[in-house]
C-alpha cells in the first residue's frame, strides 16, 4: 500500500513556501493573482494500517505545535493518466534515479526503527488558485523543475512507487570509420560530445589504427577528457597574437611567473585540485575557486548548490585530503531591476537567479559546517543570459600530506553518494554556448546536491588520511568516474567493472554510470592490505564504499560491464594525443575619449547614487544568510563596525585553534573595466585583491592568488585577444608584487544565442587572494573608531574615471584608464603592513568602487561617526585634477587610514622610511552626533555634506528595492 502523509502549516502559522511561490509568480509576471497553499509530505510504501501510519506520521514526521497532518492511501487511476487538468491540486516529486535526500532519510529512519518499508519519497503539494490558462506556466516555471522533478495534477494516480525499468545490457559500438566530415560533426553535436572536426578525425584515425570501431563509452570518455572544461584546450593550446605564436598561454604567463618567483613557501601549485602553500610548521593551506555558470543559468539553486559542493571536494581531494575551513562566493548577474520584457526566451530573470544562487550556496555551505567568509557581487546587463557563479574553498592540510601517488595494484574505491542519472554531460555542456533551447536539451546536466552525504564523506576521508589508509584521492567532478579514474590512473592504467558502482536506480546503462556527475563522490586508491580497515571506517560512519576495480601498470583504461569489455583506451592517447587547438587572437584597444563631466557645486546626490549602485550597496542581506562563524575561527567577520554592518575589506580566520596565525581572504573583479582595457582590468583586480588583504593585516610577502577567467567564445579573435592581455597582466603583476598564482580555472563560451541575437559577457577575471596574517590580534577593521583621530590617504589620485561606478551612473563612456604602478604599490603595501603590525592604525579601508568618496562614506557608516575632509589635502590635488575626479576616480593602490594623534609621528616615520611618496593627512573623524560626512572643495564650499542615516538608507539596498 502507498500512503501519502501531507503536512501543512497549522492554523495561524505562516506558509513561507506558499508566499515564496506567489512572489516568484509575480516576479515572473505570470498573469495572476495567485493564492497558493503549500504542504510538504512523504509517500511511504509498506504494509501499514491507517492507524499505524497515522501514528508514525505524528511521531516522526510532523511538528504538532505548528503543523497539521493528513494521511491518505493512494489509489491507482482507472485511466492510467498522470494528470487531471481542471483540478488545482499539484504534487511535485523527484524523478526516479534523482537524489531525494529527505526521502532517503525517512526510509533509513523507518527501517532503523524496524518497520518494513519498501520506499519513502518526499513530495510537495500545492493548492493553487489562479488563472487556469496560466496554470501550466506556473507548474513548469515555478512549482516544478522539469529537469529533475515530475508534477502530477489532481489526486496521486499511482499506488506504488515506480523505479524505472531495469537496464538490459547491450554493447554499443559506433560506426565511426565510415563517417565523412559532415557526419562526424553531426554525430558530435547530436551526442552533445562538443568535439571539433579535427578531434573527431583524430579519434577516427586512432580507432582505424586499432582496426575496430569505438564504443559509445569510449567516445564519451574521450569527449569528457578532451572537453574545454577538463583540458583547457584554448588556454593550453597555440595562440597567434600580434604576429607572435604563444605556445600554451597559461604556461607562458601565469605559471611562468610562479615558476620565476620560485618562492620557498609554495608547496604544490597548478598540479592538484587546489594550490597548496605552507602556513606554519605543522600545516599547509590550499585554495581553489571554481565556476558553475551554465548549470546556475538553468537552475540557480541547484547550480550554485552543487557549485559550492563541488569546490569543497577540491580541497578534500587535494594531496591526501584537506579539511575545508572557509568558503567564498562571487556572483555576476544582470541588474535585479531589469524589466521582465527584456529577458530573452529560455533565460531566467536576474532577481530569480540571484535569490536562487544565494540560497543554493547557503543551504550547502551551512550544512557542511564551513564558514562562508568572503564574496562579491558584480552587476552588468551583459550577464543577463550568462550569470556567473564562482565558489571557492580553503582547506587545511597537515604538513607532508600534499603529495600522492597511485601504485600498481591499488584498488579503485568509490566513496560517498550513489550514482544516478543526474548530471549527465555537464563537462561537455559547459564547453558550449547557451541557447534559447538550453532549458530543454540540457536538463540532465542539472545536478542535485546532498550536503550531509558530503559531510559524512569528509568525516571518513580525514580519519582515513590520518590513519594512512589510502595512497591517493580525487573528487568526482565534471566527467564523473571517467575523469576521476582517468586522471588518477593517467600515468599507470586502470581497470574498472562498471556494474559494481552502487546506483540510485537500476535503469542506468554502462556509459551513464561512467560519466554521471552525481554529487558527493570521491575516488580513492586504497592498497589492498588497507581495504578492510578502510571499509570498516566507512561503515562506522554510514558511508557507502565500493571497490570498482584497480590501478594496473598497463597504460590502458579498460572498462568492463558484467565481464564484457566496453572500453579499452590508451591512457597516452587520452591524455597526450588530443590535437592541439590553434586559435587566432587580436585586440584593438578602444581609442581614449575625453569625458564631458558635469562640474557641480555639490555631489551629495552623486555619492548617494554611487552608494546605491548594486556593486557598492550593502551585501548584508546575502552575508547574513551564510554561517560565517561555524568552526569558531572567524576573527574578522565579513560585516564589521559598531552595528556590524560595515563592508569589511577581507575576512580573517584562525585555521588552527590555540594559535594566532591567521588567513585573510579577499577577492576582486571589475567587469566595467574589462570591456575597456583587459590588461588594466586584470592588473587592477590583482592590486585590489592584495590591498584588501593588506588592509586587515596580511603580510604582503605571503599572499597567494587564484585566477578565474570567464570569457565569451574564444573562437572569436577579439575575445581571445582580450584574454591574452589579461593573462599577460597576471604574469607581470604577480612578478612585480611577488604574489604567485597557485591555482586557477577558466570558463569560456559564456555566450547566449537566439536567432540572430548573440550576447557575450564582459571579460571577467576574478582574482581571489589568500594572505597570511602573522598575528590576528593586530588585525584592523575599516570602521571609524574615535572622533578626533586623523584620516590619511595613502597613494596617488589621478584623473582616471574610465570604468568607474560614477561614470557608469552618469551613463557616460570614456576617460583615462587607471593603471597600476607596482613600484609605488610595493612600498605602500609594505608601509601599511608595518604600520598595522605596530598597532598605529585604528581603521584601514581600501579605495576601490566609487573612489575616495565612497571609501570614506563606508568608513563613516560602519563606525556611525562623521568625517571632515579637505579636498586640497588629497595628495595630487594640486595637479589640476577636477574635484569630481578626486572624489570618484578609481585609481588603484590607495588606502584611507585612521590614526590616533599620538601615533601620527610614528605613522609618518613608517611611510617615509618605506619610501612612500604619495600620502597626506586629508581630514579628521568628527564628534558631531549622528555624524556627517563633509568634503570641503577648493573654494571652501562643501562638495559633500550628508548625514549617516541618509547614506545608510541609500546603501542598504535590498533585492526588492
Amino acid at each position: 500500500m502507498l500512503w501519502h502523509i501531507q503536512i501543512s502549516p497549522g492554523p495561524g502559522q505562516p506558509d513561507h513556501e506558499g508566499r515564496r511561490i506567489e512572489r516568484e509568480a509575480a516576479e515572473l509576471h505570470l498573469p495572476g493573482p495567485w493564492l497558493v497553499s503549500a504542504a510538504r509530505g512523504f509517500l511511504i510504501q509498506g504494509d501499514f494500517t491507517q492507524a499505524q501510519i497515522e501514528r508514525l506520521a505524528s511521531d516522526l514526521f510532523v511538528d504538532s505545535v505548528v503543523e497539521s497532518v493528513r494521511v491518505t492511501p493512494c489509489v491507482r487511476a482507472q485511466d492510467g493518466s498522470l494528470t487531471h487538468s481542471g483540478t488545482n491540486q499539484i504534487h511535485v516529486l523527484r524523478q526516479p534515479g534523482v537524489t531525494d535526500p529527505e526521502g532517503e532519510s525517512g526510509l533509513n529512519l523507518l527501517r532503523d526503527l524496524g518497520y518494513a518499508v519498501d520506499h519513502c519519497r518526499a513530495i510537495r503539494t500545492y493548492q493553487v488558485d489562479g488563472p487556469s490558462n496560466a496554470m501550466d506556466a506556473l507548474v513548469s516555471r515555478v512549482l516544478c523543475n522539469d529537469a529533475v522533478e515530475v508534477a502530477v495534477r489532481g489526486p496521486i494516480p499511482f499506488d506504488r512507487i515506480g523505479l524505472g525499468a531495469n537496464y538490459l545490457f547491450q554493447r554499443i559500438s559506433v560506426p565511426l570509420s565510415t563517417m565523412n566530415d559532415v557526419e562526424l560533426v553531426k554525430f558530435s553535436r547530436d551526442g552533445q560530445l562538443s568535439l571539433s572536426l579535427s578531434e573527431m578525425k583524430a579519434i577516427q584515425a586512432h580507432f582505424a589504427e586499432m582496426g575496430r570501431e569505438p564504443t559509445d563509452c569510449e567516445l564519451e570518455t574521450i569527449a569528457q577528457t578532451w572537453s574545454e572544461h577538463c583540458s583547457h584546450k584554448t588556454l593550453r593550446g597555440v595562440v597567434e597574437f600580434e604576429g607572435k605564436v604563444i605556445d600554451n598561454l597559461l604556461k607562458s604567463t601565469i605559471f611562468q611567473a610562479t615558476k620565476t618567483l620560485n618562492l620557498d613557501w609554495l608547496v604544490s601549485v597548478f598540479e592538484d585540485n587546489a594550490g597548496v602553500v605552507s602556513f606554519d610548521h605543522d600545516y599547509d593551506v590550499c585554495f581553489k575557486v571554481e565556476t558553475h555558470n551554465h548549470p546556475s543559468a538553468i537552475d540557480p539553486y541547484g547550480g550554485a548548490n552543487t557549485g559550492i559542493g563541488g569546490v569543497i571536494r577540491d580541497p578534500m581531494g587535494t594531496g591526501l585530503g584537506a579539511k575545508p575551513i572557509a568558503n567564498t562566493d562571487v556572483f555576476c548577474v544582470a541588474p535585479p531591476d531589469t524589466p521582465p520584457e527584456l529577458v530573452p526566451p529560455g533565460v531566467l530573470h536576474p532577481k530569480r537567479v540571484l535569490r536562487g544562487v544565494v540560497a543554493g550556496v547557503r543551504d550547502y555551505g551551512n550544512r557542511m559546517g564551513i564558514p562562508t567568509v568572503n564574496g562579491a557581487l558584480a552587476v552588468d546587463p551583459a550577464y543577463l543570459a550568462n550569470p556567473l557563479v564562482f565558489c571557492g574553498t580553503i582547506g587545511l592540510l597537515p604538513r607532508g600530506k600534499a603529495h600522492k601517488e597511485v601504485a600498481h595494484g591499488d584498488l579503485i574505491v568509490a566513496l560517498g553518494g550513489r550514482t544516478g542519472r543526474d548530471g549527465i554531460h555537464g563537462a561537455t555542456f559547459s564547453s558550449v554556448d547557451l541557447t534559447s533551447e538550453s532549458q530543454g536539451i540540457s536538463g540532465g546536466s542539472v545536478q542535485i546536491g546532498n550536503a550531509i552525504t558530503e559531510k559524512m564523506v569528509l568525516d571518513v576521508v580525514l580519519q582515513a588520511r590520518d590513519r594512512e589508509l589510502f595512497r591517493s584521492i580525487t573528487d568526482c567532478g565534471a566527467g564523473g568516474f571517467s575523469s576521476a579514474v582517468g586522471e588518477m590512473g593517467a600515468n599507470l592504467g586502470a581497470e574498472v567493472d562498471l556494474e559494481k558502482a552502487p546506483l540510485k536506480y537500476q535503469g542506468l546503462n554502462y556509459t551513464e554510470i561512467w560519466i554521471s556527475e552525481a554529487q558527493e563522490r570521491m575516488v580513492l586508491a586504497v592498497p589492498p592490505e588497507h581495504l578492510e580497515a578502510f571499509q570498516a571506517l566507512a561503515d562506522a560512519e554510514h558511508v557507502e564504499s565500493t571497490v570498482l576495480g584497480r590501478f594496473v601498470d598497463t597504460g590502458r583504461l579498460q572498462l568492463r560491464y558484467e565481464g564484457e569489455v566496453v572500453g579499452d583506451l590508451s591512457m597516452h592517447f587520452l591524455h597526450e594525443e588530443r590535437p592541439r587547438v590553434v586559435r587566432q587572437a587580436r585586440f584593438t584597444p578602444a581609442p581614449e575619449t575625453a569625458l564631458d563631466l558635469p562640474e557641480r557645486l555639490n555631489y551629495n546626490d552623486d555619492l548617494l547614487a554611487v552608494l546605491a549602485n548594486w556593486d557598492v550597496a550593502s551585501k548584508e542581506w546575502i552575508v547574513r544568510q551564510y554561517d560565517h562563524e561555524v568552526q569558531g575561527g572567524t576573527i574578522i567577520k565579513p560585516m564589521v563596525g559598531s552595528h556590524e554592518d560595515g563592508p569589511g575589506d577581507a575576512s580573517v580566520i584562525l585555521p588552527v585553534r590555540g594559535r594566532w596565525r591567521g588567513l585573510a581572504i579577499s577577492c576582486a573583479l571589475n567587469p566595467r573595466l574589462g570591456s575597456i582595457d583587459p590588461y588594466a582590468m586584470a592588473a587592477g583586480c590583482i592590486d585590489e585583491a592584495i590591498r584588501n588583504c593588506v588592509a586587515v593585516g596580511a603580510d604582503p610577502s605571503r599572499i597567494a592568488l587564484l585566477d578565474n577567467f570567464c570569457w565569451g567564445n574564444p573562437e572569436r579573435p577579439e575575445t581571445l585577444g582580450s584574454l591574452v592581455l589579461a593573462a599577460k597582466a597576471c604574469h607581470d603583476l604577480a612578478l612585480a608584487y611577488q604574489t604567485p598564482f597557485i591555482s586557477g580555472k577558466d570558463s569560456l563560451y559564456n555566450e547566449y544565442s537566439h536567432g540572430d541575437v548573440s550576447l557575450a559577457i564582459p571579460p571577467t577575471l576574478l582574482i581571489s587572494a589568500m594572505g597570511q596574517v602573522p598575528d590576528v590580534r593586530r588585525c584592523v577593521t575599516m570602521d571609524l573608531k574615535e572622533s578626533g583621530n586623523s584620516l590619511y590617504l595613502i597613494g596617488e589620485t589621478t584623473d582616471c574615471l574610465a570604468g568607474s561606478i560614477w561614470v557608469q551612473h552618469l551613463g557616460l563612456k570614456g576617460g583615462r584608464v587607471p593603471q597600476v604602478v607596482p613600484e609605488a604599490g610595493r612600498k605602500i603595501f609594505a608601509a601599511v603592513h608595518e604600520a598595522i603590525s605596530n598597532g598605529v592604525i585604528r581603521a584601514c579601508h581600501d579605495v576601490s568602487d566609487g573612489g575616495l568618496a565612497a571609501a570614506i562614506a563606508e568608513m563613516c557608516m560602519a563606525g556611525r561617526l562623521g568625517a571632515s575632509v579637505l579636498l586640497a589635502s588629497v595628495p595630487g590635488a594640486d595637479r589640476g585634477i577636477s574635484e569630481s575626479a578626486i572624489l570618484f576616480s578609481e585609481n588603484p593602490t590607495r588606502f584611507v587610514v585612521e590614526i590616533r594623534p599620538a601615533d601620527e609621528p610614528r605613522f609618518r616615520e613608517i611611510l617615509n622610511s618605506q619610501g612612500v611618496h604619495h600620502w597626506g593627512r586629508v581630514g579628521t573623524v568628527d564628534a558631531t552626533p549622528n555624524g556627517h560626512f563633509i568634503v570641503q572643495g577648493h573654494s571652501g564650499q562643501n562638495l559633500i555634506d550628508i548625514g549617516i542615516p541618509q547614506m545608510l538608507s541609500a546603501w542598504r539596498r535590498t533585492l526588492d528595492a
Partner: protein
Amino acid sequence: MATPRVLILRAPGTNCNEETAYAWEQAGASCETWHLSRLLADASQISKFQVLTIPGGFSYGDDLGAGRIFATRLGTVLGEEVRKLRDRGGLILGICNGFQVLVRAGLLPENSEIGPVTLTRNDSGHFEDRWTRLAPVPGRSPFLTSAEPLEFPSAHGEGKFLTKSAEDLERLQQAGQIVLRYIDAEGNPTQSFPQNPNGSAGAVAGMCDPTGQILGLMPHPERHVLPYHHPRWTRSELRAEGDGMRLFRSAVASLSE
C-alpha cells in the same frame, strides 16, 4: 578537583563538535567525541561521563525537521540513560541543533504540566547568522550563575521558540525554566527583529528542565570563547575572555564542587 568528563555526541551532519570540545577543554573539562551509533551500541557507556553535549549542525540534514532524526534515535534508545545521567547529578547541554534535538526527544521542557514546545522556522523564513544579546536568569541552571548579559552569535534557520498555548509559555516562565532571553540594547527582553533574531515567543533563547541540569539554547556559546571572536573587538575594550567561557566554566565549577 576532578576533571569532569564530557561526552560530545555527533551524528551525520553535526558540524560544531570541534569548537564545542575546545570550549569545554578551555574550561577545564576533558572531552570525548562519539558518533551516535557508538553510543547506541552500548547506551550504558554514558555512565562514564558527567556531561552530555549535543552540538550544533544539521544532524541527518534536518531532513525530517530540525533535529528530528537524531532526537528519534536519542529518544527511543537513550532517553532513559540520559535521564539517569541527570538524576545522578550530570549535566546535559544542547546547542542550536542540539537544543532542537533535546526538544524533539522530549527531554525539554520535561514538565508534565506543559504540552509540547517547538523550535520552528524563523520569521525571516531563512537561515541567519547574527550576534545576539542574552539575559540569563541565574539560580536554576548550573550553566548560568550570573545575570550579567551574554553576547553569542545566533546562526540558524529554525530557532523560533513556540509553545502550544500562551498558558504553556506562562507556566514555563512561572516554573523558572526560561533561563535565557533575547534582549535589546536597554537589556529588556524583546520581540523586535533583529535583537530577537527569529521571532521566539517570550524572547526565549534558551530553556532548562525543572532541575536546571538539562539546558538547551539556540545561540552558540562555543563561538565566543576568545575575546577576538566578538564582532566589535577591534573597536571596544578587549574582554579577558569570550562570554561563552562563563557558561562552560560555571558548569565545570558546579561539577567539581
